[in-house]
C-alpha cells in the first residue's frame, strides 16, 4: 500500500486519529509519519489514544497513555516485519541497546525484543505486567548466577553497614554484622 500523503513511498506506519469522536485512519511512509510527528500541530489535532486500536497485544501493553505514543508510530501489520536492525528509523524514542527495539515495537508485537528490554523499559512495561499477573514480584526458583550475584550484593551491603557501624563506634552492631558476613561467606 502506498503512503496516503506523498503517494510515492510504501506505507509502513498506521495511524488512527480520533478528534472529538471523528475517527480517521492513515497509512503513511516513515518520512511522512516523521513529518507529522514533528509538526507541532499534532498534539492539538490527534488523540493518540486511538492507537490502542491496534488490537490484540497492542492494548495488552497499555498503549493508551497519551504522549508516550509520540515515539510509537507503529509499522502496519502488513509492512515489513523485518528482524533485528531493520526496524524503520522513525521516532526519536529510546531504543534497547541490545536488540534495538523501541517501546512501540514491543507494544505492537506483544513481545519484548530481548531480556534487556525489561530493564530498559521497566516502568512502561510495569502496568501491563501488573494487568497480567497482579501486583507482585517473582518468588520461586532463581537463576544460579543471579543468586550468586545477589548473594554478593548482600555481603557488599553488609560490609557497607559494617564500615558505618565502626565509624559511628557502634561496636555491638559491628560485631553482629561481622558474624553475619562470616556466616554468609562460609
Amino acid at each position: 500500500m502506498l503512503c496516503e500523503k506523498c503517494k510515492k513511498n510504501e506505507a509502513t506506519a498506521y495511524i488512527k486519529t480520533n478528534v472529538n469522536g471523528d475517527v480517521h485512519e492513515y497509512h503513511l511512509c516513515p518520512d511522512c509519519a516523521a513529518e507529522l510527528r514533528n509538526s507541532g500541530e499534532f498534539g492539538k489535532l490527534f488523540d493518540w489514544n486511538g492507537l490502542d486500536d491496534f488490537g490484540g497485544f497492542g492494548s495488552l501493553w497499555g498503549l493508551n497513555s497519551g504522549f508516550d505514543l509520540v515515539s510509537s508510530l507503529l509499522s502496519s501489520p502488513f509492512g515489513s516485519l523485518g528482524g533485528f536492525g531493520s526496524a524503520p528509523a522513525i521516532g526519536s524514542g529510546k531504543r534497547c541497546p541490545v536488540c534495538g527495539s523501541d517501546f512501540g515495537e514491543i507494544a505492537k508485537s506483544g513481545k519484548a525484543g530481548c531480556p534487556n528490554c525489561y530493564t530498559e523499559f521497566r516502568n512502561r512495561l510495569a502496568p501491563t505486567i501488573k494487568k497480567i499477573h497482579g501486583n507482585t514480584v517473582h518468588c520461586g526458583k532463581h537463576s544460579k548466577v543471579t543468586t550468586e550475584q545477589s548473594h554478593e550484593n548482600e555481603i557488599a551491603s553488609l560490609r557497607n553497614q559494617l564500615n558505618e557501624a565502626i565509624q559511628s563506634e557502634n561496636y555491638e552492631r559491628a560485631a553482629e554484622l561481622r558474624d553475619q558476613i562470616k556466616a554468609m561467606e562460609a
Partner: protein
Amino acid sequence: MSGNEKNTERKWYQTQGKEADTVISTRLRFARNLNGYPFPHRMTDAQKKEVNEKVRDALIGGNSALRDSFTYVEADQLSPVQLAAMVERHLISPEFAGNPKGRALLMMKDESVSIMLNEEDHLRIQVMGSGLQLDELYDTADKIDTLLDETLHFAFDEELGYLTACPTNLGTGMRASVMLHLPALTASGTLNRIASSLDKMGATIRGSYGEGSQSSSAMYQVSNQVTLGISEKDTLSNLTEITRQMIALEKKARAGMLKSEAYQDTVWRALGLMKCARVMSSEEFGELYSALRMGVAEGIVTDVTLDRLADLYVKVQPANIMEQYGKELTPSQRDQKRAEILRNELR
C-alpha cells in the same frame, strides 16, 4: 530419526502412570532465554544458529552428564510429516512445526524430555510423563534447567523472575499441564460450570490439542495460568489439588453412568468396531476411543490395558500413520490404514 530407531526405544507414553483411569499424562514446560541475544522473533539466522549451538553444546557437548541421553536435530532437516507426527506426540508445538527454519530440537530417546530451541523463547524445556506426576516431572525439569543454567546463565531479574519473550510467562516461566480423560463429565454437561470455577483458582482448561479439535475423545488439558508471584512448588500443589477434585467429580459421574446397561453396550460396541471396521475417520476413532478407554479404566473390558491404548492412540493419529507407512496419504487412505492398524493391534 530413522523409523527403525523410533520403534526400538520404549516411549514414555507406553507405560502406565498414577491415576491412569482419569489422568492421561502430565507435562511441564520451562521458558528460558539467554542474555545478550534478541528473542527469536527478532533474531537473525546467524544468531539463531549461535543459540542452537550454544544450547546443544551445553547439554550434550564435552563431558556433560547428559551427553548420551539426548539427540539434536535441526527442524528444517525434518520432513513436514515428521514434524506433524511430533506435534501429535506433543514433542513440539504446532507453532514450532509450522515455522521450522532456524529452530532445533534436543530430545531424550524415550521422548519424555524435549527442548525446543528458538520457538517463542530461546529454550522451551519440556518434560512429559504418563499419569499424574507433577512433582516427579518437576524434579527432572529442575535438574536439566539447573545444569543448563551453569553454562548458559539464563536471563533473570530479581523482581520479574525468568525473562521471557511474552510477558505472560514471566516469573517461573513454568507452564504445568495435566491431560485428563473426562467422558462422564462431558456426557453430563457439567464441564462448563467447572471451567468457570477453575478460572478463579488460577487454572484453565481446554481441549487436548489446544484447539478443542479432539473434544470427541473427551480429553482436556488443565494448566496453571499465572507464573509471576507464585512459586513452582505452590503452582504444582495448587494444580495437583485441582486435578484431584476433577478426578473425584469424574469418578462420581462415572459411577452413575456405569450402572447403565446402555453404556456398557457402548463400550463393547466401541471395541467391536475397532476390531472389525475397514474404514475409520479421526472423529469416529476419537469417540470410540473415549468409550473404550473408560471401559478399560473401569474394568468392563479386560483384554486391553491402558498403556496399550495410549500407544494405539498415537499410532493412529494422521501424521503418525503416514510416518509408519513412509509416505503421504490422502485422508481416505489414512482412514483405511487407521482401521487396519486397529485391527492388527486389537486382534
